[in-house]
């Protein structure tokens, strides 16, 4: 079975999107997860709810609002136009922003749980060993949260690969620009090209299974170590 050039492009775009989303989200979600696990601020509950929102919202709702915000009349759209960047909807950047918001809980929650599970003691120990809070965060908290970080990365990557609604709403399934594997499958089915759809769909199935299997094996190994 041979992939069409469009399907190839969709696969490349999917990988590019998932990789960028994962990298950016790890950088954003690590301080956010740390803050959520440590703070006693009154803002904790509302921020936590906000971060979790994409988990329960239909992707179309998220996509709809993003479309409005990024569109020519939306606040973000007007800002990007004023800066000379044009409108972000139906572009890769727009897609990336949507993906980041959509996968936010999948990155934040494993990290937050890892920091929670660590308890206050390791940071106290580090402080009695002359480590400043920032120093202790990098030399103690991050290494101890490594399993959470790996889980966050895998979940974010897989979840981004699997997203459909947001991508369709913001990206519009433009071949070579915003068409990813999930929307490509949808396109093939619409066009009655079941053979093409099969290749991609089976590929996604295998990929998702392998990811979840890897996660399960990793978790088991960690439990044995701990």
């Amino acid at each position: 079975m041979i992939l069409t050039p469009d399907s190839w492009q969709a696969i490349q775009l999917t990988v590019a999107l998932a990789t960028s989303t994962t990298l950016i989200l790890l950088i954003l979600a690590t301080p956010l997860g740390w803050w959520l696990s440590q703070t006693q601020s009154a803002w904790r509950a509302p921020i936590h709810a906000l971060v979790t929102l994409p988990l329960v919202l239909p992707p179309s709702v998220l996509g709809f609002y993003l479309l409005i915000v990024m569109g020519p009349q939306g606040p973000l759209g007007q800002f990007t136009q004023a800066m000379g960047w044009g409108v972000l909807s139906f572009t890769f950047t727009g897609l990336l922003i949507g993906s980041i918001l959509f996968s936010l809980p999948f990155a934040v929650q494993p990290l937050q749980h890892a920091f929670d599970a660590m308890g206050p003691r390791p940071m106290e120990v580090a402080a009695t060993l002359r480590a400043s809070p920032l120093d202790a965060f990098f030399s103690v908290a991050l290494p101890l949260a490594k399993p959470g970080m790996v889980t966050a990365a895998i979940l974010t990557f897989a979840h981004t690969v699997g997203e459909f609604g947001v991508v369709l709403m913001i990206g519009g399934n433009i071949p070579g620009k915003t068409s990813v594997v999930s929307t490509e499958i949808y396109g093939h089915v619409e066009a009655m090209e079941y053979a093409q759809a099969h290749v991609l769909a089976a590929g996604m199935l295998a990929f998702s299974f392998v990811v979840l299997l890897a996660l399960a094996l990793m978790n088991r190994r960690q439990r044995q170590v701990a």
Partner: protein
Amino acid sequence: MSAIHLQVKIHRSAFKLDLDLQLPGQGITAIFGPSGSGKTTLLRAVAGLEKNQQGLIQIGEHIWQDTQQGVYLPTWQRPLGYVFQESSLLPHLSVTDNLNFGLKRVLKSAGSAQSDAAKALQASIELLGIGSLLQRMPTELSGGERQRVAIARAIAMQPQLLLMDEPLASLDAARRQEIFPWLSKLRDELKMPMLYVTHSAEEVTRLADHLVVLAQGQVKAQGPVSAVLTQVVNPVVVGEDAGALIEGRIGEVDGQWHLSRVDFDGGCVWMRDAGLPVGKAVRIRILARDVSLATSEPQNTSIQNQLLGTIQSITPDAHPSQVMVVLKCGAEEVLARVTKRAVDELALQVGQPVWAQVKSVALVA
């Protein structure tokens, strides 16, 4: 060595800690009390781990906290060593990396030479006998080994003050016995003052030089350990374990009878030979229940140890039939628990010289 001044006030809904302590700048000061008395909170306040407080924390000339002047050093800027109750080794680092974690940062801020670091590290490794454990991960150590590494890690930084929060409490009796000698060695070989939190009377009698007794967030008694232990008003060890703690030296070893003589200011006692050489400093414990009193020098008795002293006080004991008599023998105090009837029949009075017959002497350290 200059002294330590601690003023700590912490008020919480269900708990209040309020004390003002002047402590010696050397040796082990034991902070003793039942759980909930505020021992650990005090230690955490000294370290700056407990923030909700006001007061003064001064170690020698160094001020770590002074709320009146608005001085508050965060924990990581206080030159202290802290040994937590349970294992506190950083689990992702090997023993060597744990030992180096604090040392590296001390050197960076002090700008001292690498060779000094290596020397300090080597000394602490030897002091705690952990040379063979260096490559291991914390999970591969026994509880006792972990605490020894934690202690070595703290002292390698050569802190101005070493804080230990019940370092033996998480260990079973056998492991505890295994660590005692190392702790005694620390006390004898290190110059740095130590605050040692414990609820074990055994640890107090074996290790402490100075004793602070806490109850419900307040200081009940404090002073040199032998003086506080013989206090009858606020007894640290009550019931069957009440007694005197005496510091002395082995004066003679009698090989024929397997006995050794401990000399101290106020007399001498014979005890079972423990294989210690003449001149060795020892601590002995004489329990109040093992001491009886006589108004004249006892003759024809099987009891080998007799001390001449003066009655300092006669206080009622827990049971109405008993009293606790405190004798002054030279510089030391000896406790005797006798019946009220005996005191009456012998007409014992404060200031009167009496002979104390000591049935048994225990070597504690």
